[in-house]
């Protein structure tokens, strides 16, 4: 049962030895000043400050009215949204199961949040139904959520419906402002998904991770099966250079379209190809998110 998180921790441990030790400490920029136990600094009293914040001893020493300022210890909520259509049961360009990769990315994000002491919620679903697991800070809960996501992805499940999932999340998560990390395998950006992402962008900090698909024309892997139809793909796909070129062009155009659309929405996104590149991709994403916030 508890198999997902240990693997993710192991990979993160290897990774953190290399270059991102520092990043682990500072993934989230929480610079909001508010009330908490941690004293940040003192400043001169201005009218309107809470009288309870006046540091009487310091005021007596310094001869002026000083008030205490605190670092806000607002707990963030990280909401990992995983699109679990049957296309996730397929393999990606490196013949890795996209399911494992999706769970891994969700796990990395979730684990970083848990380490940071934040709450992690997981939403997942497809055209057949959506589920939102309430945010919690527990490691075990995260593990179970990852298990649920893993089990939800089979070749027999309904097709992916990212827009529907986002709409469901918008209905269920109403008040909370979260850092929403969307893990999906959308290759393009249709209007409905764009609208749902735009809607989410208003409420949440949205980050997006997409997973690649195998290009069936690129290499002659025998016995490729179309996950949508359950039928075998024709065996002559890898033999036509023009088809390969056309497909590569179409895929590149779609990827550019997706990138442009997300840039328009102001959503940072990363493409993840395998487990090794997933961790830096997640960090890059968080980095961009932090920069975007501090701007």
């Amino acid at each position, binding site marked *: 049962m508890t198999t997902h998180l240990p693997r993710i921790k192991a990979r993160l441990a290897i990774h953190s030895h290399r270059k991102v030790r520092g990043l682990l400490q500072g993934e989230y920029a929480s610079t909001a000043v508010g009330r908490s136990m941690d004293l940040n600094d003192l400043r001169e009293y201005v009218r309107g400050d809470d009288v309870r914040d006046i540091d009487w001893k310091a005021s007596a020493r310094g001869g002026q009215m000083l008030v205490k300022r605190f670092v806000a210890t607002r707990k963030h909520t990280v909401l990992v949204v995983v699109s679990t259509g049957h296309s996730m049961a397929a393999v990606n360009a490196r013949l890795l199961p996209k399911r494992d990769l999706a769970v891994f990315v969700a796990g990395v994000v979730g684990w970083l949040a848990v380490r940071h002491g934040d709450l992690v919620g997981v939403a997942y679903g497809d055209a057949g139904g959506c589920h939102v697991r309430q945010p919690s800070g527990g490691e075990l809960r995260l593990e179970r959520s990852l298990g649920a996501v893993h089990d939800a992805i089979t070749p027999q499940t309904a097709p992916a419906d990212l827009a529907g999932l986002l709409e469901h999340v918008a209905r269920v998560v109403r008040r909370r402002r979260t850092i929403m990390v969307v893990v999906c395998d959308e290759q393009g950006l249709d209007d409905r998904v764009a609208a749902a992402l735009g809607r989410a962008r208003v409420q949440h900090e949205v980050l997006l991770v997409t997973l690649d698909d195998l290009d069936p024309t690129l290499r002659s892997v025998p016995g490729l099966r*179309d996950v949508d139809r359950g039928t075998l793909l024709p065996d002559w796909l890898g033999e036509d250079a023009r088809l390969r070129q056309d497909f590569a062009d179409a895929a590149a155009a779609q990827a550019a379209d997706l990138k442009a659309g997300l840039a328009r929405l102001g959503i940072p996104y990363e493409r993840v190809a395998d487990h090794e590149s997933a961790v830096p991709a997640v960090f890059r994403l968080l980095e961009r998110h932090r920069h975007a916030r501090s701007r």
Partner: protein
Amino acid sequence: MIELRWPMLAVSLASIVVLLVLLWTRQPRRRDDGLLVAHTDRLRTLPRFRALARREQLVAAVATLGALAMLTGAILMSARPARPVVVEPDRNGRDIVLCLDVSGSMDPWNRKVVESFRQLLDGLNGERLGLTMYSGLSISVFPLTDDYAFVRSKLDEAEAAFATEDYDYFIGTEAVEERASQTGDGVMSCLQRFDVDHDDRGRAIVLATDNDPLGEGIFTLSEAAGEARRDEVVVYGIGTPGMKPARATELTDAAEDTGGFMSVVEDTGGVDDVIRGIQEIERDRLRPLPTGVEIDEPVVPFGVAVAGFVVLLSGALLGRRR
């Protein structure tokens, strides 16, 4: 009109094929093998993919058509398509032995008999001719054969011998004892010329004799006639104008006993007509009945099968050479 000789075989083969195809297509497809690929729609919408798919479909359709034609042809061929035809047997299964009494008085008659037979040769087809001479003894000049060139040469020889009264030619028929023109013995030895294992062939002896024996033979003419009847051999007698009435009657009785007849030719020119008459009667008597035969007609299904094979092969080659 072509009909199938073994239609049930075709039906069962066809149903086996249909059953196999059904089994093959109804087999639940295994969904769990092979790598799964998602988002193939963007591949399927490519014009190049559609063009290739159309071509593949065309090739597959052509190959399927070829296989179908091959199967159909093979099944039809296995059912043995045949055309019923009525066959007029073009060969006459008859054996005729010329039995010539070569006592000196017979020479002109014999020459005419041989000559008219030689003229008849052109009209023969399948009949076998044999020539036996007898007087005191009998010898076989040539056995029953349908080698007409050989027969012709032998008949020429005999005719020449009769014309020149070549004594050397007949010397084998001279008995040591005082014995000549033994018609009974002659007929008996002619009967032996028929080979026994051809029961289905008509048998006839054309016996040219004046039936004037000298000395004692082994068989009488009536005994020989009885033997001939037992062997189902018809004896046609050709008598000479100068023969004694009693002898002529004996010959007539013997011939009629076997189902034949005897005619006495008035002059040498009449032999032709007698021989021709015998030929006619024999032909009528032994005309084989036309029989219904089914001739295999595998050309069309074979052509269909071969054409199907060629189409299938070309489809396969076309599909391979992408």
